[in-house]
């Protein structure tokens, strides 16, 4: 085994695939005991998977009506030969045009995208890696505002050798990115002899679900122009913005700033979240830099989108009526889910960071921590996984400096399952509160209290947050 180990490369034997993170322990718990409404109603509910499953019916409907969009049907097979042999890394022209239109529409028609700047990647995973290969050398670094998507550790750096320099954000200002934080991170990196090549932001944010406002975007652009570094905007959640909100893309602001060096600006997009098609591996790099487009295109050979899939999506996304309807309905459904879930949490005094996008909430459980540390968070998280049986993602896996936050996904299940999840959280909070209250009361009142208190919380929906002692006997007992 040891001899085998030596036979492989450093990349093959290091940890940058990121799978040893506790982030995945929850997934394992789910895989070992997955919830099913009838077969396994006590199983773990998966709330750690940021997927948009709410509007697949609309797509299925379209597919049924358009068999000719598939080259593997009698209606479409006349195109089979041409499409199946098409491996040009420029991509099918109609696919690029459809993607350019899609991206424009998602941004409210306020920007037009040039189909010739569209480069394919193997999903956003491949696209993010690809842009890093184009912009940075091994050992170089990218600034990444925290909390950030856990897999960036792998995607940005595993094979590229690029380092992540976090730009820490916290709740004192709702996790917004400040110029001061950027400057501090940049200066420290430079002092440490680290060559910063760029900044990568996810907008809308994963895990926060918030979007950057115009001022912040302008601030970011002026920062990168000043330091002469790149900016990569991962906008893969752009279409998950709630219908009542407006998404401002970097592409809009770039056009507003006169002296902006556009060669520094690059966007990553995908259909995995917006359309709920992660299996189709549609990743896009859109760069304003010609050299990056040229180089990126060559590199896309390593992760081209299947021509069969390009053809289908070119057809689907060119159907303007379908697309307009899909985006509107999808956005409404996401917003509704968000509302149901956050209201359900508010009833038991759990608040979430105010958000306007994404398929998850950033839930605040700091008041439930025994200690405001990573250990405290891990302890609570293990309870949530093992007792409440929900796989949620702890803030530490997103490299957040503030423990006690959890990302909870709500769009990868049906309404009933979400109800079950809410009930379990209610029960959990109720139970904790009750135990805490009990510890302050005499024993002879125990039985009556248990019945009346917990049921009152659940049914009456008390609005005010219940202050939990950080030294809850329940948690202490477990430790």
């Amino acid at each position, binding site marked *: 085994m040891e001899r085998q180990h030596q036979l492989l490369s450093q990349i093959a034997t290091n940890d940058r695939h990121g799978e040893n993170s506790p982030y995945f322990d929850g997934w394992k718990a789910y895989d070992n005991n997955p919830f099913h409404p009838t077969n396994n109603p006590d199983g773990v509910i998966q709330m750690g998977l940021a997927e948009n499953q709410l509007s697949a019916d609309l797509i299925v409907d379209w597919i049924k009506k358009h068999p000719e969009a598939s080259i593997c049907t009698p209606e479409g097979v006349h195109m089979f030969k041409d499409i199946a042999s098409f491996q040009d890394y420029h991509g099918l022209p109609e696919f690029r045009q459809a993607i350019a239109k899609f991206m424009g529409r998602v941004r409210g028609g306020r920007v037009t995208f040039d189909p010739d700047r569209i480069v394919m990647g193997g999903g956003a995973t491949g696209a993010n890696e690809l842009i890093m290969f184009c912009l940075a050398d091994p050992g170089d670094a990218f600034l990444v505002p925290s909390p950030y998507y856990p897999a960036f550790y792998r995607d940005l750096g595993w094979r590229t050798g690029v380092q992540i320099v976090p730009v820490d954000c916290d709740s004192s200002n709702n996790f917004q990115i400040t110029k001061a934080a950027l400057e501090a991170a940049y200066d420290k990196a430079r002092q440490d002899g680290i060559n910063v090549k760029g900044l990568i932001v996810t907008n809308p944010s994963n895990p926060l679900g918030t979007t950057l406002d115009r001022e912040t975007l302008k601030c970011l652009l002026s920062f990168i122009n000043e330091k002469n570094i790149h900016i990569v905007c991962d906008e893969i959640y752009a279409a998950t913005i709630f219908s009542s909100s407006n998404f401002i893309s970097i592409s809009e602001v770039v056009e507003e700033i006169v002296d902006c060096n556009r060669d520094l600006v690059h966007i990553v997009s995908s259909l995995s979240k917006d359309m709920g098609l*992660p*299996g189709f591996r549609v990743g896009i790099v859109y760069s304003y830099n010609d050299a990056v487009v040229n180089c990126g295109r060559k590199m896309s050979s390593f992760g081209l989108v299947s021509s069969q899939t390009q053809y289908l999506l070119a057809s689907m996304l060119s159907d303007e009526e379908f697309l307009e309807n899909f985006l509107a309905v999808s956005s409404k459904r996401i917003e509704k889910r968000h509302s149901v879930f956050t209201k359900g949490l508010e009833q038991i005094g759990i608040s979430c960071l105010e958000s306007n996008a994404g398929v998850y909430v950033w839930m605040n459980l700091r008041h439930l921590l025994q200690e405001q540390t990573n250990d405290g968070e891990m302890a609570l998280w293990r309870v949530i996984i093992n007792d409440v049986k929900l796989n949620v993602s702890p803030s530490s896996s997103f490299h957040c400096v503030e423990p006690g936050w959890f990302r909870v996904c709500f769009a990868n299940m049906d309404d009933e399952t979400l109800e079950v999840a809410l009930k379990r959280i209610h029960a959990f909070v109720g139970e904790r509160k009750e135990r805490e209250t009990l510890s302050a009361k005499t024993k002879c009142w125990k039985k009556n209290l248990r019945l009346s208190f917990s049921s009152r919380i659940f049914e009456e929906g008390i609005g005010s947050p219940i202050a939990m002692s950080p030294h809850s006997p329940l948690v202490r007992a477990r430790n």
Partner: protein
Amino acid sequence: MAIEIEQPTVELSKVAVSETHGEDSPYFAGWKAHDEDPYDESSNSSGVIQMGLAENQVSFDMLEEYLEQNSEASSWAEGAPGFRENALFQDYHGLKSFRQAMASFMEKIRGGRAKFDPDRIVLTAGATAANELLTFILADPGDALLVPTPYYPGFDRDLRWRTGVKIVPIHCDSSNNFQVTLEAMEAAYMHAVAMNIKVRGVLITNPSNPLGATIQRSVLEEILDFAKRKNIHVVSDEIYSGSTFSSSEFVSIAEILEARGYKDSERVHIVYSLSKDLGLPGFRVGTIYSYNDKVVTTARRMSSFSLISSQTQHVLASMLSDKKFTEKYIKTNRERLRKRYEMIIQGLKTAGIECLKGNAGLFCWMNLSPLLETPTREGELALWNSILHEVKINISPGSSCHCSEPGWFRVCFANMSETTLDVALKRIHSFMDQRKTDAIQSPPQQ
């Protein structure tokens, strides 16, 4: 005079500005010439005929027939869950049914002489991704893979560009039909050592591109033994395994490992793809089959950057599980390729051109060394240029395949109709006749 204030340009990565993507090679210049003036039977009968593209277009009808009878839509029509589940499926293990279908297809191609475990199959977006991925896993930047010449020009990019790994050639020549010899392997290895470069493996393509010939069993055994002595890996790119004209002539490294009871097999990895055998390069279907558990696990994780579209996995899973279809397809495809091969060999022979004896692939390895003005790379490129511009066919010069012996050219025959192939052969005939006439009329200066 106005002073132009230049925007400071921020550098891209070294990888981005390097030329290791290899697109400045003459291999691609011919493609450009074709793209600018492409032959078309009816609309542009004097255009450039593309014979530099190793694609298999002889068996589409069978695929189309299958799809007409087994529509993708019918599987979606069975109910929403089918499409939904598929569209959500991004597990890097890949669809189990598809892996099983691939394993069984690979077994069929080898006439059942080797078994493949579906759990050792890692899926990647094309062999391009598979080869790069394996290189990332088996070698560190600055290390080398030994590759017999002549080899597929794309290897320069796939194995080296983003990985930083070098290729050290194992020189082969016509004295023994370009077969790999122990001496050549040892020489290559020592050459690397002399340059202080660490060799991590040998990468062979079997059947060979551009030779169009299978590697003999004895040579495969020698390569395995050599790798064992040096404690290095063996990657066998068997992308053309289903394109051998006769099933019995192809020996896969998998067969040899099985015969050895899989002893010392953790150093062996096979690359396969459906781009050539099934003629589906657009679908991006590649696989890595490794006998090394750690490589399988790591490759699977790394495949995240280049997964196969679940839509494509789904369609092909049913197609390749259809035993009746695959048996008929494999057999018929082989026959058609053999027929094409015989047609081109005969046509070239009557024009006075000899080729290496081949038994596989979508191309033949043509010997034009007697036509060279000087037996050098420059002479070869000059000849190539005149063939491109006078004969108007794009063929691939041996130098772009790193062949150390000038004058050889790879000529593809499966990416066109028989009629077009006929036109190409006629043009070559005229070209050769013209040269004979010129030679007679202006004999070489004494």
